Protein backbone atom coordinates (compact mmCIF):
# COMPACT_ATOMS: atom_id res chain seq x y z
CA UNK A 1 0.00 0.00 0.00
CA UNK A 2 1.09 3.52 -0.64
CA UNK A 3 2.17 5.38 2.45
CA UNK A 4 -0.09 8.32 3.13
CA UNK A 5 1.96 11.30 4.26
CA UNK A 6 1.61 11.98 7.95
CA UNK A 7 0.22 15.50 7.63
CA UNK A 8 -2.57 14.37 5.31
CA UNK A 9 -3.46 11.55 7.63
CA UNK A 10 -3.55 13.99 10.48
CA UNK A 11 -5.84 16.35 8.62
CA UNK A 12 -8.37 13.76 7.65
CA UNK A 13 -8.26 12.32 11.15
CA UNK A 14 -9.11 15.75 12.51
CA UNK A 15 -12.02 16.05 10.11
CA UNK A 16 -13.30 12.62 10.96
CA UNK A 17 -12.96 13.23 14.65
CA UNK A 18 -14.94 16.43 14.35
CA UNK A 19 -17.59 14.78 12.24
CA UNK A 20 -18.09 11.81 14.49
CA UNK A 21 -17.49 13.57 17.76
CA UNK A 22 -14.64 11.33 18.75
CA UNK A 23 -11.09 12.17 19.74
CA UNK A 24 -8.47 12.73 17.10
CA UNK A 25 -6.32 9.91 18.44
CA UNK A 26 -9.27 7.57 18.16
CA UNK A 27 -9.94 8.61 14.57
CA UNK A 28 -6.30 8.19 13.69
CA UNK A 29 -6.24 4.74 15.20
CA UNK A 30 -9.35 3.78 13.25
CA UNK A 31 -7.88 4.99 10.01
CA UNK A 32 -4.74 3.07 10.60
CA UNK A 33 -6.84 0.00 11.26
CA UNK A 34 -5.69 -0.24 14.85
CA UNK A 35 -9.16 0.01 16.31
CA UNK A 36 -12.69 -0.77 15.17
CA UNK A 37 -14.48 1.96 13.23
CA UNK A 38 -16.95 4.00 15.18
CA UNK A 39 -20.53 3.20 14.27
CA UNK A 40 -22.86 6.12 14.46
CA UNK A 41 -26.33 5.43 15.77
CA UNK A 42 -29.38 6.10 13.66
CA UNK A 43 -30.54 9.64 13.60
CA UNK A 44 -33.51 10.68 11.44
CA UNK A 45 -32.24 14.18 10.90
CA UNK A 46 -28.97 12.93 9.66
CA UNK A 47 -30.49 10.43 7.29
CA UNK A 48 -32.45 12.94 5.33
CA UNK A 49 -29.72 15.40 4.85
CA UNK A 50 -27.27 12.75 3.99
CA UNK A 51 -29.39 11.45 1.21
CA UNK A 52 -29.94 14.58 -0.71
CA UNK A 53 -26.57 14.80 -2.36
CA UNK A 54 -26.08 11.09 -2.68
CA UNK A 55 -28.92 10.24 -5.09
CA UNK A 56 -28.17 13.09 -7.44
CA UNK A 57 -24.64 12.00 -7.80
CA UNK A 58 -25.24 8.29 -7.98
CA UNK A 59 -28.57 6.50 -7.73
CA UNK A 60 -31.50 8.56 -8.88
CA UNK A 61 -34.24 6.83 -6.84
CA UNK A 62 -35.16 8.87 -3.74
CA UNK A 63 -34.09 12.17 -5.14
CA UNK A 64 -37.14 12.33 -7.34
CA UNK A 65 -39.20 12.86 -4.23
CA UNK A 66 -37.35 15.98 -3.25
CA UNK A 67 -38.26 18.26 -6.10
CA UNK A 68 -36.21 21.34 -5.39
CA UNK A 69 -32.72 19.90 -5.20
CA UNK A 70 -33.32 17.42 -8.00
CA UNK A 71 -34.33 20.19 -10.34
CA UNK A 72 -31.24 22.01 -9.47
CA UNK A 73 -29.00 19.08 -9.89
CA UNK A 74 -30.09 17.40 -13.09
CA UNK A 75 -29.02 20.08 -15.59
CA UNK A 76 -25.48 19.76 -14.41
CA UNK A 77 -24.06 17.54 -17.04
CA UNK A 78 -20.40 18.05 -16.60
CA UNK A 79 -17.76 15.85 -18.02
CA UNK A 80 -15.93 15.69 -14.80
CA UNK A 81 -17.39 13.72 -12.00
CA UNK A 82 -15.44 15.69 -9.47
CA UNK A 83 -17.00 18.96 -10.50
CA UNK A 84 -20.47 17.50 -10.43
CA UNK A 85 -19.94 16.26 -6.95
CA UNK A 86 -18.85 19.65 -5.85
CA UNK A 87 -21.89 21.32 -7.34
CA UNK A 88 -24.09 18.77 -5.70
CA UNK A 89 -22.41 19.39 -2.42
CA UNK A 90 -23.04 23.09 -2.74
CA UNK A 91 -26.63 22.47 -3.58
CA UNK A 92 -26.97 20.22 -0.64
CA UNK A 93 -25.76 22.87 1.71
CA UNK A 94 -27.97 25.56 0.31
CA UNK A 95 -31.08 23.45 0.23
CA UNK A 96 -30.63 22.05 3.64
CA UNK A 97 -33.90 23.39 5.04
CA UNK A 98 -35.88 22.51 1.93
CA UNK A 99 -34.57 19.03 1.94
CA UNK A 100 -35.43 18.61 5.53
CA UNK A 101 -39.03 19.64 5.19
CA UNK A 102 -40.87 17.40 2.73
CA UNK A 103 -39.51 14.06 3.61
CA UNK A 104 -41.12 11.94 6.23
CA UNK A 105 -41.42 8.68 4.34
CA UNK A 106 -38.08 8.06 2.66
CA UNK A 107 -36.88 4.56 3.09
CA UNK A 108 -33.46 5.56 4.27
CA UNK A 109 -30.57 3.21 4.77
CA UNK A 110 -30.35 1.73 8.20
CA UNK A 111 -26.92 2.81 8.95
CA UNK A 112 -24.82 5.85 8.43
CA UNK A 113 -21.30 5.59 9.51
CA UNK A 114 -19.76 8.76 8.30
CA UNK A 115 -20.21 12.51 8.05
CA UNK A 116 -23.51 12.86 9.86
CA UNK A 117 -23.66 16.61 9.47
CA UNK A 118 -23.42 18.18 6.10
CA UNK A 119 -20.11 19.79 6.51
CA UNK A 120 -18.00 19.63 3.46
CA UNK A 121 -14.89 17.92 4.60
CA UNK A 122 -13.21 18.02 1.23
CA UNK A 123 -12.67 20.77 -1.21
CA UNK A 124 -12.12 20.70 -4.88
CA UNK A 125 -8.60 21.86 -5.42
CA UNK A 126 -8.21 21.28 -9.07
CA UNK A 127 -9.64 19.31 -11.92
CA UNK A 128 -7.14 17.09 -13.65
CA UNK A 129 -8.17 16.26 -17.17
CA UNK A 130 -7.81 12.64 -18.14
CA UNK A 131 -4.59 12.64 -20.13
CA UNK A 132 -1.72 10.19 -20.21
CA UNK A 133 1.12 11.23 -17.97
CA UNK A 134 3.70 10.50 -20.63
CA UNK A 135 3.36 11.65 -24.18
CA UNK A 136 5.19 10.08 -27.06
CA UNK A 137 7.76 12.73 -27.93
CA UNK A 138 8.48 11.88 -31.52
CA UNK A 139 6.15 12.11 -34.43
CA UNK A 140 5.92 8.95 -36.48
CA UNK A 141 8.37 9.04 -39.38
CA UNK A 142 8.22 7.13 -42.62
CA UNK A 143 10.99 4.59 -42.19
CA UNK A 144 12.26 1.59 -44.09
CA UNK A 145 14.47 -1.31 -43.11
CA UNK A 146 18.16 -0.58 -43.41
CA UNK A 147 18.60 -4.04 -44.83
CA UNK A 148 18.14 -4.12 -47.77
CA UNK A 149 16.97 -0.61 -48.64
CA UNK A 150 20.09 1.23 -47.48
CA UNK A 151 22.72 -1.47 -47.43
CA UNK A 152 22.22 -2.64 -50.98
CA UNK A 153 22.63 0.80 -52.58
CA UNK A 154 25.64 1.34 -50.34
CA UNK A 155 27.12 -1.91 -51.49
CA UNK A 156 26.51 -1.03 -55.11
CA UNK A 157 28.12 2.40 -54.85
CA UNK A 158 31.04 0.87 -53.00
CA UNK A 159 31.55 -1.66 -55.78
CA UNK A 160 31.23 1.04 -58.42
CA UNK A 161 33.86 3.12 -56.65
CA UNK A 162 36.17 0.12 -56.42
CA UNK A 163 35.76 -0.59 -60.11
CA UNK A 164 36.41 3.04 -60.98
CA UNK A 165 39.53 3.18 -58.80
CA UNK A 166 41.01 -0.02 -60.21
CA UNK A 167 40.31 1.12 -63.74
CA UNK A 168 41.87 4.52 -63.09
CA UNK A 169 44.92 2.91 -61.51
CA UNK A 170 45.31 0.59 -64.48
CA UNK A 171 45.43 3.36 -67.06
CA UNK A 172 46.91 6.30 -65.18
CA UNK A 173 50.38 5.76 -63.82
CA UNK A 174 51.28 7.59 -60.61
CA UNK A 175 54.22 9.90 -61.26
CA UNK A 176 57.72 9.08 -60.10
CA UNK A 177 60.30 11.65 -61.20
CA UNK A 178 64.05 11.58 -60.59
CA UNK A 179 65.23 11.01 -57.07
CA UNK A 180 64.85 13.89 -54.64
CA UNK A 181 67.66 16.40 -54.97
CA UNK A 182 67.67 19.47 -52.73
CA UNK A 183 70.18 21.18 -55.02
CA UNK A 184 68.00 21.11 -58.12
CA UNK A 185 64.87 23.20 -57.87
CA UNK A 186 62.26 22.39 -60.51
CA UNK A 187 60.66 25.36 -62.16
CA UNK A 188 57.83 25.76 -61.36
CA UNK A 189 57.61 23.97 -58.03
CA UNK A 190 53.98 23.20 -57.39
CA UNK A 191 52.14 22.07 -54.26
CA UNK A 192 49.63 19.20 -54.40
CA UNK A 193 46.54 20.23 -56.37
CA UNK A 194 44.35 20.85 -53.33
CA UNK A 195 46.82 23.52 -52.20
CA UNK A 196 47.35 25.00 -55.65
CA UNK A 197 44.47 27.45 -55.28
CA UNK A 198 46.14 28.72 -52.16
CA UNK A 199 49.53 28.86 -53.85
CA UNK A 200 47.98 30.83 -56.71
CA UNK A 201 46.32 33.22 -54.27
CA UNK A 202 49.59 33.72 -52.42
CA UNK A 203 51.44 34.54 -55.61
CA UNK A 204 49.41 37.77 -55.75
CA UNK A 205 50.77 39.07 -52.48
CA UNK A 206 54.12 38.83 -50.89
CA UNK A 207 53.53 35.91 -48.51
CA UNK A 208 55.71 37.66 -45.97
CA UNK A 209 53.12 40.41 -45.84
CA UNK A 210 50.03 38.24 -46.25
CA UNK A 211 51.06 36.19 -43.23
CA UNK A 212 49.98 32.78 -44.43
CA UNK A 213 49.09 30.66 -41.50
CA UNK A 214 47.18 33.17 -39.41
CA UNK A 215 44.48 33.88 -42.03
CA UNK A 216 44.40 30.18 -42.82
CA UNK A 217 43.86 29.13 -39.23
CA UNK A 218 41.40 31.96 -38.68
CA UNK A 219 39.50 30.96 -41.81
CA UNK A 220 39.39 27.39 -40.59
CA UNK A 221 38.09 28.39 -37.17
CA UNK A 222 35.41 30.57 -38.74
CA UNK A 223 34.48 27.73 -41.07
CA UNK A 224 34.17 25.40 -38.08
CA UNK A 225 32.02 27.93 -36.26
CA UNK A 226 29.83 28.44 -39.31
CA UNK A 227 26.75 26.62 -37.93
CA UNK A 228 26.88 28.91 -34.91
CA UNK A 229 27.16 31.99 -37.10
CA UNK A 230 24.39 31.10 -39.54
CA UNK A 231 21.39 31.21 -37.21
CA UNK A 232 18.77 30.94 -39.96
CA UNK A 233 16.91 27.72 -39.15
CA UNK A 234 15.54 27.21 -42.69
CA UNK A 235 17.01 24.44 -44.79
CA UNK A 236 15.22 24.99 -48.06
CA UNK A 237 17.47 26.67 -50.62
CA UNK A 238 14.86 29.31 -51.46
CA UNK A 239 14.93 30.51 -47.85
CA UNK A 240 18.67 30.73 -47.42
CA UNK A 241 19.74 32.41 -50.62
CA UNK A 242 22.60 34.30 -49.03
CA UNK A 243 24.26 31.20 -47.59
CA UNK A 244 23.88 29.36 -50.89
CA UNK A 245 25.33 32.27 -52.81
CA UNK A 246 28.17 32.61 -50.36
CA UNK A 247 29.21 28.97 -50.68
CA UNK A 248 28.76 28.90 -54.42
CA UNK A 249 31.05 31.91 -54.80
CA UNK A 250 33.56 30.19 -52.56
CA UNK A 251 33.37 27.00 -54.62
CA UNK A 252 33.67 28.85 -57.90
CA UNK A 253 36.59 30.91 -56.63
CA UNK A 254 38.44 27.90 -55.29
CA UNK A 255 37.77 26.02 -58.51
CA UNK A 256 39.02 28.82 -60.76
CA UNK A 257 42.16 29.42 -58.68
CA UNK A 258 42.94 25.69 -58.60
CA UNK A 259 42.49 25.32 -62.35
CA UNK A 260 44.72 28.31 -62.98
CA UNK A 261 47.32 26.87 -60.63
CA UNK A 262 47.20 23.45 -62.24
CA UNK A 263 46.97 24.31 -65.92
CA UNK A 264 47.92 27.92 -66.54
CA UNK A 265 51.07 28.39 -64.54
CA UNK A 266 54.49 27.59 -65.97
CA UNK A 267 58.11 28.36 -65.20
CA UNK A 268 58.57 31.35 -62.94
CA UNK A 269 54.87 31.12 -62.09
CA UNK A 270 54.21 32.91 -65.38
CA UNK A 271 50.92 32.61 -67.20
CA UNK A 272 50.99 29.83 -69.82
CA UNK A 273 48.38 28.28 -72.05
CA UNK A 274 48.23 24.50 -71.73
CA UNK A 275 47.41 24.08 -75.43
CA UNK A 276 50.40 26.19 -76.51
CA UNK A 277 53.03 25.76 -73.84
CA UNK A 278 52.05 22.41 -72.36
CA UNK A 279 51.10 21.50 -68.80
CA UNK A 280 53.39 21.98 -65.85
CA UNK A 281 51.69 19.59 -63.54
CA UNK A 282 53.58 16.35 -63.08
CA UNK A 283 50.78 14.51 -61.34
CA UNK A 284 48.79 14.24 -64.54
CA UNK A 285 51.38 13.49 -67.16
CA UNK A 286 52.24 9.86 -66.99
CA UNK A 287 49.61 7.83 -68.71
CA UNK A 288 50.42 4.18 -68.99
CA UNK A 289 51.59 3.51 -72.49
CA UNK A 290 50.32 0.32 -73.98
CA UNK A 291 52.94 -1.32 -76.14
Amino acid at each position, binding site marked *: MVDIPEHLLQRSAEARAKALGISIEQALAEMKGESDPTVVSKDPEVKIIDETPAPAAETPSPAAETPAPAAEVTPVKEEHAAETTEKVAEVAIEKKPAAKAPDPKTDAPDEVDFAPEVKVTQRLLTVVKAKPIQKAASEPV*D*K*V*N*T*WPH*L*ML*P*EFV*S*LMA*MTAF*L*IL*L*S*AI*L*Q*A*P*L*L*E*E*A*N*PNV*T*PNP*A*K*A*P*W*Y*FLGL*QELLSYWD*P*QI*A*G*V*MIPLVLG*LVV*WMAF*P*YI*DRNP*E*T*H*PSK*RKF*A*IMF*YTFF*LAGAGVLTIIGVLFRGPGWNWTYPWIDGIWF*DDLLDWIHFE
Partner: protein
Amino acid sequence: MQKLSLRDRIKEVRVTAGDSFRGGKLMSSIFRPGSPFKKGYVDSPRNRSYVVMNNVLYHLHPVKVKRHGVRLSYTLCLGGLSFFLFIVLTITGIWLMFYFRPTELAYVDIQALQTDIAFGSLVRNMHRWGAHLMVLVVFLHMSRVFYHGAYKAPREFNWVIGVILLLLTLLLSFTGYLLPWDQLAIWAVTVGGNMAGYTPVIGAQAKFGLFAGLEATTATLLRFYVLHVLFLPFIIVIFMAVHFWRVRKDGGISGPL
Protein backbone atom coordinates in the same frame (compact mmCIF):
# COMPACT_ATOMS: atom_id res chain seq x y z
CA MET B 1 13.03 -46.17 -54.44
CA GLN B 2 12.58 -44.20 -57.55
CA LYS B 3 15.53 -44.28 -59.82
CA LEU B 4 17.16 -40.90 -60.30
CA SER B 5 19.19 -39.82 -63.24
CA LEU B 6 22.81 -39.09 -62.57
CA ARG B 7 22.23 -35.44 -63.01
CA ASP B 8 19.39 -35.37 -60.49
CA ARG B 9 21.46 -37.33 -58.05
CA ILE B 10 24.32 -34.88 -58.28
CA LYS B 11 21.90 -32.06 -57.81
CA GLU B 12 20.41 -33.71 -54.77
CA VAL B 13 23.79 -34.32 -53.21
CA ARG B 14 24.76 -30.75 -53.90
CA VAL B 15 21.62 -29.30 -52.36
CA THR B 16 21.64 -31.46 -49.25
CA ALA B 17 25.37 -31.00 -48.76
CA GLY B 18 24.99 -27.25 -49.17
CA ASP B 19 22.10 -27.17 -46.75
CA SER B 20 23.79 -29.25 -44.12
CA PHE B 21 26.87 -27.10 -44.46
CA ARG B 22 24.89 -23.90 -44.20
CA GLY B 23 22.94 -25.27 -41.25
CA GLY B 24 25.94 -26.96 -39.68
CA LYS B 25 27.81 -26.23 -36.48
CA LEU B 26 30.56 -24.26 -38.16
CA MET B 27 28.30 -21.89 -40.02
CA SER B 28 25.97 -21.36 -37.11
CA SER B 29 28.94 -20.48 -34.94
CA ILE B 30 29.98 -17.85 -37.44
CA PHE B 31 26.67 -16.27 -38.37
CA ARG B 32 24.28 -14.96 -35.79
CA PRO B 33 20.53 -15.59 -36.02
CA GLY B 34 18.85 -13.82 -38.90
CA SER B 35 21.89 -13.75 -41.14
CA PRO B 36 21.04 -14.11 -44.81
CA PHE B 37 23.91 -16.59 -45.04
CA LYS B 38 22.21 -19.03 -42.72
CA LYS B 39 20.08 -21.95 -43.76
CA GLY B 40 16.41 -21.19 -43.97
CA TYR B 41 16.69 -17.43 -44.18
CA VAL B 42 13.33 -16.01 -45.08
CA ASP B 43 12.74 -12.45 -46.09
CA SER B 44 10.63 -11.09 -43.27
CA PRO B 45 10.63 -7.77 -41.42
CA ARG B 46 11.91 -9.57 -38.35
CA ASN B 47 14.84 -11.11 -40.18
CA ARG B 48 15.62 -7.82 -41.85
CA SER B 49 15.97 -6.28 -38.41
CA TYR B 50 18.14 -9.17 -37.32
CA VAL B 51 20.48 -8.66 -40.24
CA VAL B 52 21.38 -5.29 -38.78
CA MET B 53 20.97 -5.98 -35.08
CA ASN B 54 22.92 -9.21 -34.90
CA ASN B 55 25.71 -7.83 -36.96
CA VAL B 56 28.81 -5.76 -36.53
CA LEU B 57 27.14 -3.19 -38.77
CA TYR B 58 24.75 -2.51 -35.91
CA HIS B 59 27.38 -0.09 -34.76
CA LEU B 60 27.10 1.86 -37.98
CA HIS B 61 23.46 1.62 -38.99
CA PRO B 62 20.17 1.63 -37.14
CA VAL B 63 17.61 -1.04 -38.01
CA LYS B 64 15.41 1.45 -39.78
CA VAL B 65 16.20 4.65 -41.57
CA LYS B 66 14.09 7.47 -42.94
CA ARG B 67 12.67 6.64 -46.31
CA HIS B 68 13.96 9.78 -47.99
CA GLY B 69 17.43 9.16 -46.53
CA VAL B 70 17.98 6.02 -48.56
CA ARG B 71 17.35 7.80 -51.83
CA LEU B 72 20.75 7.84 -53.43
CA SER B 73 20.05 11.33 -54.70
CA TYR B 74 19.98 12.76 -51.18
CA THR B 75 23.40 11.93 -49.74
CA LEU B 76 24.85 10.66 -53.02
CA CYS B 77 26.50 8.23 -50.63
CA LEU B 78 29.36 10.71 -50.38
CA GLY B 79 29.99 10.30 -46.66
CA GLY B 80 29.89 6.53 -47.00
CA LEU B 81 32.27 6.69 -49.95
CA SER B 82 34.69 8.90 -47.99
CA PHE B 83 34.77 6.21 -45.35
CA PHE B 84 35.09 3.45 -47.92
CA LEU B 85 38.00 5.20 -49.62
CA PHE B 86 39.66 5.51 -46.24
CA ILE B 87 39.36 1.74 -45.83
CA VAL B 88 40.76 1.11 -49.31
CA LEU B 89 43.66 3.42 -48.47
CA THR B 90 44.29 1.60 -45.22
CA ILE B 91 44.43 -1.77 -46.95
CA THR B 92 46.62 -0.68 -49.85
CA GLY B 93 48.72 1.41 -47.47
CA ILE B 94 49.50 -1.53 -45.22
CA TRP B 95 50.42 -3.49 -48.30
CA LEU B 96 52.81 -0.75 -49.40
CA MET B 97 54.45 -0.66 -45.96
CA PHE B 98 55.83 -4.14 -46.58
CA TYR B 99 58.05 -2.77 -49.34
CA PHE B 100 58.95 0.67 -48.14
CA ARG B 101 61.70 2.07 -45.92
CA PRO B 102 61.49 5.76 -44.94
CA THR B 103 65.23 6.41 -45.47
CA GLU B 104 67.53 7.28 -48.39
CA LEU B 105 66.29 3.96 -49.77
CA ALA B 106 62.74 5.20 -50.13
CA TYR B 107 63.12 6.13 -53.78
CA VAL B 108 64.75 2.81 -54.68
CA ASP B 109 62.03 0.97 -52.83
CA ILE B 110 59.33 2.68 -54.84
CA GLN B 111 61.17 1.91 -58.06
CA ALA B 112 61.48 -1.72 -57.06
CA LEU B 113 57.85 -1.80 -56.08
CA GLN B 114 56.83 -0.65 -59.54
CA THR B 115 59.06 -2.97 -61.48
CA ASP B 116 59.82 -6.07 -59.42
CA ILE B 117 56.76 -6.76 -57.32
CA ALA B 118 53.56 -8.37 -58.54
CA PHE B 119 50.75 -5.81 -58.68
CA GLY B 120 53.14 -3.30 -57.11
CA SER B 121 52.38 -0.63 -59.64
CA LEU B 122 48.64 -1.21 -59.46
CA VAL B 123 48.52 -1.02 -55.68
CA ARG B 124 50.69 2.10 -55.62
CA ASN B 125 48.42 3.74 -58.19
CA MET B 126 45.34 2.77 -56.25
CA HIS B 127 46.79 4.27 -53.11
CA ARG B 128 47.74 7.48 -54.81
CA TRP B 129 44.61 8.06 -56.89
CA GLY B 130 42.48 6.83 -54.02
CA ALA B 131 44.02 9.53 -51.84
CA HIS B 132 43.28 12.24 -54.39
CA LEU B 133 39.80 10.86 -54.78
CA MET B 134 39.23 10.89 -51.05
CA VAL B 135 40.14 14.57 -50.80
CA LEU B 136 37.72 15.26 -53.63
CA VAL B 137 34.90 13.11 -52.23
CA VAL B 138 35.23 14.56 -48.73
CA PHE B 139 35.07 18.01 -50.25
CA LEU B 140 31.96 17.09 -52.23
CA HIS B 141 30.42 15.57 -49.11
CA MET B 142 31.01 18.85 -47.31
CA SER B 143 29.37 20.73 -50.18
CA ARG B 144 26.39 18.39 -50.12
CA VAL B 145 26.00 18.96 -46.39
CA PHE B 146 26.23 22.70 -46.89
CA TYR B 147 23.67 22.89 -49.69
CA HIS B 148 21.21 20.82 -47.64
CA GLY B 149 21.72 23.05 -44.62
CA ALA B 150 22.43 19.78 -42.83
CA TYR B 151 24.77 21.53 -40.41
CA LYS B 152 21.89 23.28 -38.67
CA ALA B 153 20.60 22.36 -35.23
CA PRO B 154 21.00 19.77 -33.86
CA ARG B 155 23.89 18.93 -36.16
CA GLU B 156 26.14 21.95 -35.58
CA PHE B 157 28.73 20.00 -33.71
CA ASN B 158 28.96 17.30 -36.33
CA TRP B 159 29.94 20.01 -38.79
CA VAL B 160 32.76 21.02 -36.45
CA ILE B 161 33.94 17.42 -36.35
CA GLY B 162 33.57 17.32 -40.13
CA VAL B 163 35.90 20.28 -40.61
CA ILE B 164 38.45 18.52 -38.41
CA LEU B 165 38.05 15.42 -40.59
CA LEU B 166 38.64 17.51 -43.70
CA LEU B 167 41.78 18.95 -42.15
CA LEU B 168 43.03 15.49 -41.17
CA THR B 169 42.30 14.18 -44.66
CA LEU B 170 44.38 16.98 -46.17
CA LEU B 171 47.20 16.39 -43.71
CA LEU B 172 47.20 12.68 -44.46
CA SER B 173 47.39 13.38 -48.15
CA PHE B 174 50.09 15.98 -47.72
CA THR B 175 52.32 13.83 -45.51
CA GLY B 176 51.94 10.96 -47.97
CA TYR B 177 53.00 13.19 -50.83
CA LEU B 178 56.61 13.28 -49.60
CA LEU B 179 57.09 9.55 -49.21
CA PRO B 180 58.11 8.52 -52.79
CA TRP B 181 61.11 10.79 -52.28
CA ASP B 182 61.32 12.04 -55.83
CA GLN B 183 61.63 15.58 -57.14
CA LEU B 184 57.86 16.05 -57.20
CA ALA B 185 57.54 14.94 -53.58
CA ILE B 186 60.33 16.94 -52.04
CA TRP B 187 59.54 20.20 -53.83
CA ALA B 188 55.80 20.07 -53.28
CA VAL B 189 56.43 19.58 -49.60
CA THR B 190 59.06 22.32 -49.64
CA VAL B 191 56.52 24.73 -51.12
CA GLY B 192 53.96 23.73 -48.47
CA GLY B 193 56.47 23.92 -45.63
CA ASN B 194 57.68 27.33 -46.76
CA MET B 195 54.11 28.59 -46.51
CA ALA B 196 54.14 27.51 -42.87
CA GLY B 197 57.41 29.42 -42.59
CA TYR B 198 55.62 32.67 -43.40
CA THR B 199 53.54 32.46 -40.23
CA PRO B 200 54.04 35.69 -38.34
CA VAL B 201 56.11 35.45 -35.16
CA ILE B 202 56.47 31.65 -34.95
CA GLY B 203 57.12 31.00 -38.66
CA ALA B 204 60.68 29.77 -38.28
CA GLN B 205 59.72 27.42 -35.44
CA ALA B 206 56.73 26.05 -37.34
CA LYS B 207 58.87 25.33 -40.37
CA PHE B 208 61.63 23.77 -38.27
CA GLY B 209 59.12 21.51 -36.52
CA LEU B 210 57.58 20.43 -39.80
CA PHE B 211 60.85 19.73 -41.57
CA ALA B 212 62.73 18.40 -38.55
CA GLY B 213 65.43 20.82 -39.67
CA LEU B 214 65.86 23.78 -41.95
CA GLU B 215 64.85 22.03 -45.15
CA ALA B 216 63.33 18.79 -46.38
CA THR B 217 65.76 15.95 -45.59
CA THR B 218 65.48 12.28 -44.74
CA ALA B 219 64.69 13.39 -41.19
CA THR B 220 61.61 15.07 -42.66
CA LEU B 221 60.86 11.87 -44.50
CA LEU B 222 60.85 9.84 -41.29
CA ARG B 223 58.74 12.43 -39.53
CA PHE B 224 56.16 12.51 -42.29
CA TYR B 225 56.15 8.73 -42.48
CA VAL B 226 55.30 8.29 -38.81
CA LEU B 227 52.62 10.93 -39.05
CA HIS B 228 51.26 9.34 -42.21
CA VAL B 229 51.07 5.69 -41.22
CA LEU B 230 50.47 5.93 -37.49
CA PHE B 231 49.54 9.20 -35.88
CA LEU B 232 47.10 10.75 -38.35
CA PRO B 233 45.17 7.53 -39.17
CA PHE B 234 44.81 6.93 -35.46
CA ILE B 235 43.39 10.39 -34.88
CA ILE B 236 41.12 10.36 -37.92
CA VAL B 237 39.58 7.02 -36.90
CA ILE B 238 38.65 8.47 -33.52
CA PHE B 239 37.04 11.51 -35.13
CA MET B 240 35.23 9.33 -37.68
CA ALA B 241 33.81 7.22 -34.87
CA VAL B 242 32.46 10.34 -33.19
CA HIS B 243 31.19 11.64 -36.53
CA PHE B 244 29.19 8.49 -37.31
CA TRP B 245 27.91 8.27 -33.77
CA ARG B 246 26.69 11.85 -33.94
CA VAL B 247 24.94 11.23 -37.28
CA ARG B 248 22.81 8.64 -35.47
CA LYS B 249 22.38 10.54 -32.24
CA ASP B 250 21.32 13.69 -34.05
CA GLY B 251 18.38 11.78 -35.47
CA GLY B 252 19.84 10.23 -38.59
CA ILE B 253 20.10 11.94 -41.93
CA SER B 254 18.73 15.47 -42.03
CA GLY B 255 15.87 16.57 -44.22
CA PRO B 256 13.81 16.11 -46.27
CA LEU B 257 14.15 19.64 -47.58
